[in-house]
């Protein structure tokens, strides 16, 4: 019998984390799993878990891509000379992306034709690689599954087309509601659960703890660890003043940026903290995930600057969550009653309040929030099972 083969599209490292437990579970069921990644200025392949991955540009056909580019170029040239929203995008960047779109469009078709997977998996079909994969999987009658990539709190319009070609297996009822509001057919959105959130934030991992403490300075020992998560590195410096006076406190802050933060921007912003003598430590972008999750397990509280899926991950721990709002924040967890707003006071004072004012009301709302967002915190096996049962008949809607 021909071996069953799952082909999965890998993007940034924090997305890869969500695919790997499901891939492992699929592999345990006797399937072969092939990962592939795409050319995003080397950011994706440099964080792939190992070297055994397929590389989309290897399947490119430059002549065909150039022909497709030339076919579409006149249309875009005309658009560039008119007044429209595309003029918010640098013409050279737009041009480069169009060329990449053409290359990847052809390459994805070639990849699927060459590898002939039984099913394909990605985190969503809303970026250009997910669209390419969905279109060609549909044309070649290959079942296409997508998993949830984080909390879905953006404008519902962003999620339109989420299930154009895929069946999406999401974490909880809240996401299903959002996707349906965005026009996704209910039968294409299935609530199964998060692959492994419980293992990440609840299950002790001595190796993860070691990795964390290897990275923290000696001064952190004996202090109360506070996990500070910053959604956008470029705004971090604005909050430096609020952090003053932390050096004399019992708290030790560990600042973690979003995985996609720009390194030079982060380093620039960190200078504002150095000059303030804040007793804190920047958990760099090079931290292994095991150390990140160990910090979540071992920190006593989390301060979220901006808006992030971290709010949900942290809420699963049941520990106090503080929030500092930022401009253009899509969701305010303090307004939802699942985080305490720490604005308008020095952070040291805010942290004291966070521990004293973290009442049962907050705890209850946090639990309700987690239940609504995550039906099952350890669903890797269920997800794998769903992919396999949905791929039994080639060409059928999964």
């Amino acid at each position, binding site marked *: 019998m021909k071996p069953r083969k799952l082909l999965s599209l890998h993007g940034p490292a924090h997305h890869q984390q969500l695919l790997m437990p499901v891939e492992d579970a699929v592999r345990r069921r006797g399937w072969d799993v092939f990962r592939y990644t795409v050319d995003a200025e080397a950011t994706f392949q440099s964080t792939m878990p190992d070297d055994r991955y397929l590389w989309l540009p290897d399947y490119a056909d430059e002549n065909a891509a*150039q022909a*497709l*580019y*030339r*076919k*579409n*170029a*006149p*249309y*875009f*040239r*005309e*658009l*560039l*000379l*008119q*007044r*429209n*929203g*595309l*003029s*918010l*995008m*640098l*013409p*050279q*960047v*737009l*041009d*480069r*992306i*169009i*060329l990449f*779109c*053409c290359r990847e*469009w052809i390459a994805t078709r070639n990849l699927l034709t060459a590898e002939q997977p039984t099913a394909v998996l990605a985190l969503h079909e*809303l*970026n*250009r690689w997910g*669209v*390419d994969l969905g*279109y060609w999987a549909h044309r070649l009658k290959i079942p296409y599954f997508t998993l949830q990539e984080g909390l879905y709190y*953006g*404008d519902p*319009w*962003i999620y339109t*087309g989420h299930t*154009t070609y895929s069946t999406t297996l999401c974490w909880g009822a809240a996401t299903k509601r959002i996707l349906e509001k965005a026009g996704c057919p209910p039968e294409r959105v299935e609530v199964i659960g998060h692959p492994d959130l419980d293992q990440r934030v609840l299950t002790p991992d001595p190796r993860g703890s070691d990795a964390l403490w290897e990275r923290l300075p000696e001064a952190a020992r004996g202090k109360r660890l506070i996990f500070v998560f910053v959604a956008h590195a470029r705004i971090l410096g604005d909050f430096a003043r609020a952090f003053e006076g932390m050096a004399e406190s019992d708290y030790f802050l560990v600042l973690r940026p979003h995985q996609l933060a720009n390194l030079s921007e982060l380093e620039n912003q960190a200078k504002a903290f150095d000059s303030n003598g804040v007793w804190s430590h920047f958990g760099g972008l090079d931290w292994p995930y095991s150390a990140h999750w160990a910090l979540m397990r071992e920190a006593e509280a989390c301060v979220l600057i901006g808006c992030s899926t971290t709010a949900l991950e942290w809420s699963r721990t049941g520990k106090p969550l503080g929030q500092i709002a930022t*401009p*253009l924040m899509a969701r305010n967890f303090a307004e939802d009653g699942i985080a305490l707003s720490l604005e308008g006071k020095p952070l040291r004072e805010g942290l004291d309040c966070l521990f004293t004012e973290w009442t049962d009301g907050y705890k209850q709302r946090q639990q309700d929030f987690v239940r609504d967002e995550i039906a099952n915190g350890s669903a890797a096996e269920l997800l794998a099972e769903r992919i396999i049962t949905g791929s039994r008949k080639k060409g059928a809607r999964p």
Partner: protein
Amino acid sequence: MNILVVIGEVAYDGTQGKILFLVELLRQYGYDPMLLCWTDRVAQAAQAHGFPLLRITPQEQPAVDAVAEAKQVAELLTGRIDGGDTPSWARLLAFDDFIGSVQAWGLSSLGGYKPDVIIKSVPGGESSTPQDEQVELALHRFATWNRIPRIGVEVQRLDGPLSISRWPVDVLLTKQVYPSWTGLSPALQQTAQLRPAHRHYCRYGMDQMLEGFLPQEKELRERLSLPPDKAVFFMPFHLYYTEECRRLLRSAWESLGKSRQQNDVHLAVSVGNGTRRSLSERDIFMQGCKREWQPWGAVQVLENADTMAMLLLSDAVLLPYHMAVLEDMCRKWEVPLWTLQRETHRLLPWATPIDAIEACRAAVQDAAATPAERETA
């Protein structure tokens, strides 16, 4: 007429600052250009030349509702979904890539300065600086939305795989003729090659002779009565080679083919002091080559002209005999050289930045004219 010349870091460094000669050239011809820049080095160099200067500072971009913009872009691109093998551009571009690339900082006004024409270098897809890109995009919006004609000048090479982004200009002045210019935008009516000497403004590398010549170009052209708006073909005549001159004039005219319709040509011939019997070199040329020069329309005969100056002022050279110095300099300055051995050249129309401005002026006037006025015109 308000002419805004935009000098970015890449254009300045890529030409070792010589792009500023462009402003000088415009001044020579009576225009009053305003220079737009955003770096100290360019500003200092411009001030040293005494050029009027508009200094801007690209700012942190203001908050913008990228999703609302993306919705509009998606609507705009939805027409590309044809159900066939063409990518669904709305999906490909209007989501992650668009939302992640939105740059909203704009030039709402230029301190009250209202340009009628913008002259700028065309990004060729090579390296750039974040500030250059920020201004490039802001200018693109400013010019498109205010319908200000743009003249693009080639500094970076324009024959890379990316062809869409080099066309948001109305007139393109290039340094070279590219083997293929596919898919020219219908909106882009004019592509012209810069005059050989003017290409030096847009190149890396210094050349003492050219740099000494450029500031006095207009004066020299006037002194020699060379029309500034015509493609000048220069031929040094020598009475030893009358037959060769005749053959060359004839074959060059034929090989110009379509180009001679695109270019208003002007034939300038230099003659020396030689005589044969009662005839001067001028007489020998005028009478002996009459059948050959007549198709050119008219001929200007210059006695004892400075060959190097003529070379700098010419758009092409016809050389009926060997002359190593002239041949070498033609090669160096990339002046098209017609000889009896090599008689064909692929030519775009020649243009100076002045021609481009005049073309833009005509386009603006035409756009502003009422239908009745256009009819009358």
